[in-house]
């Protein structure tokens, strides 16, 4: 009996997560929408204003017609922060996989998963290692936060990480990030959210950069120097005047977030990754009884399973 109940709950979990994925493909998160409104209101260049207006018209139509706001619904990534006491911990991987299959059919999402080397489109939006799932275990907790992320092609292309020598220092990291903005950044659908990761190695820096994109727009790094760097990079990239679509405008970015971890004395790992203006990240939270709600999308109705 317990097993049957568990199966029913898992199936309900699949349904809720699939509908949340669909919701995040159709509606941008509250913070992104608000930031774009603010940028539209302060913009003075005529072409840029026209492009912002088109973006808002697109968001209105997407909501009205219940269609994904961008045709590139990305490759699905999940960042799961899960309490070790969450009763459905063992099922989450399977549930997320099922939710992707379901949401792909029902929304519909674009079929974006190509197996490497075999080089064919799987036709299901799942494949080897996809959806990508990154775990963080939370000892002593019983709830589960699932961050969803649609990694589109255009905004994934600028992603890069490297390891600098300490003698090159933070100025080299600044140049590394800024160079990427005027080359790949223009095609990544600005205004961008820029994630910068600092760490010991190329992959820790890269993961930090991705985590930076999950932070709410307007949030700041707790370290004073890192927070100041966020501010300086934001001002600096805005000063370039990339504007929406890279065609010129008063501002270029929705924000710059830096996430940092400690480094090796001989290395300074740095990474940059960006989110496009259509920043499809969401967060849905479940408690141990499967009461749920979203912290990013106020129009997604919470409930209980």
């Amino acid at each position, binding site marked *: 009996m317990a097993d049957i109940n568990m199966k029913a709950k898992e199936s309900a979990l699949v349904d809720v997560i699939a509908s949340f994925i669909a919701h995040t493909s159709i509606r941008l998160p509250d913070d992104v929408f608000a930031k774009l409104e603010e940028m539209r209101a302060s913009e003075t260049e005529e*072409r840029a204003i*026209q*492009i912002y207006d*088109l*973006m808002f*018209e*697109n968001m209105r*139509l*997407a909501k009205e*017609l219940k*269609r*994904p*706001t*961008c*045709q*590139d*619904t990305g490759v699905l990534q999940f960042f799961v922060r899960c309490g070790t006491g969450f009763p459905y911990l063992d099922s989450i991987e399977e549930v997320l996989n099922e939710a992707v299959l379901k949401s792909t059919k029902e929304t*519909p*999402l*674009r*079929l*974006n998963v190509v197996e490497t080397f075999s080089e064919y*489109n799987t*036709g299901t939006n799942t494949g080897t290692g996809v959806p990508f799932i990154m775990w963080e275990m939370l000892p002593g907790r019983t709830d589960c936060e699932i961050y969803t992320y649609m990694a589109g*092609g*255009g905004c994934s*292309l600028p992603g890069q990480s490297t390891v600098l020598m*300490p003698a090159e*220092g*933070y*100025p080299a*990291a*600044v*140049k590394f990030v*800024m*160079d990427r*903005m*005027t080359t790949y950044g*223009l*095609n990544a*659908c600005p205004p961008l959210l820029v994630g910068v990761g600092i760490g010991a190695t190329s992959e820790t820096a890269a993961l930090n950069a991705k985590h930076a994109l999950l932070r709410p727009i307007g949030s700041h790094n707790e370290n004073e*120097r890192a927070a100041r*760097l966020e501010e*300086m*990079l934001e*001002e*600096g990239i805005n*000063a*370039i*005047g*990339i504007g*929406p*679509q*890279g*065609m*010129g405008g008063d501002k270029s970015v929705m924000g710059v977030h830096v996430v940092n971890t400690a480094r090796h*004395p001989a290395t*300074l790992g740095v990474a940059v990754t960006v989110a*496009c203006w*259509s920043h499809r990240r969401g967060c849905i939270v479940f408690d141990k009884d499967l009461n749920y709600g979203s912290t990013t999308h106020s129009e997604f109705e919470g409930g209980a399973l």
Partner: protein
Amino acid sequence: MTEIRNGKKVLITPITEEDVRALHIGDTIYIDGHVVTGRDAVHDRVVVEGLDMPVDIHGGVDVHAGPIVRDLGDGHFEMVAIGPTTSMRMEHFEYDFIKKTGVRILVGKGGMKDNTAAGCKEFGAVHCVFPAGNAIVAAVCIEEIESAHWLDLGMPEAVYDCRVKEFGPLIVGIDTEGRNFFEEKKVEYEKIKDEEVAKISAEVGYIM
């Protein structure tokens, strides 16, 4: 033929060489008639493998886009969402693609470079930007997918022949005189970027 309608400049397919040669970077236009989708794999088939486009696009419009399409059965399809993809990926093929197909307007995201600009100048074509991420604005300009081809390439890569009404806005990025909006902008951007890097670098000399 070019028509001014409610202040909008609308080009009607088939588009003449004269129509595109009258366009300049920064102009905003719309398309009536037909557009096809064709991106990476389509360019490869036409330019490298030497196949003919499955639809005649002389005087036509090729959109660098991988749409979301709903298969309605019986060979019918519905355009759910369509937006431009990064045009630079097609740069390597575009001179030959323009030469071979006689396409007049290429639509995509961001800029392209010299190979495309040379084709635009020599054969009479322009590259335009459809402001990206606006996939539903674009989808509602499409009245019908009249036919679908090369479906073996998968949903994002197939060729969809679409009948459109005021498809746009399209902002001219490369014109027939060799001017290139993004390349000109990039010179400005690079200069400011270097100044900003120097400014920030002066404040981050805190490594141990």
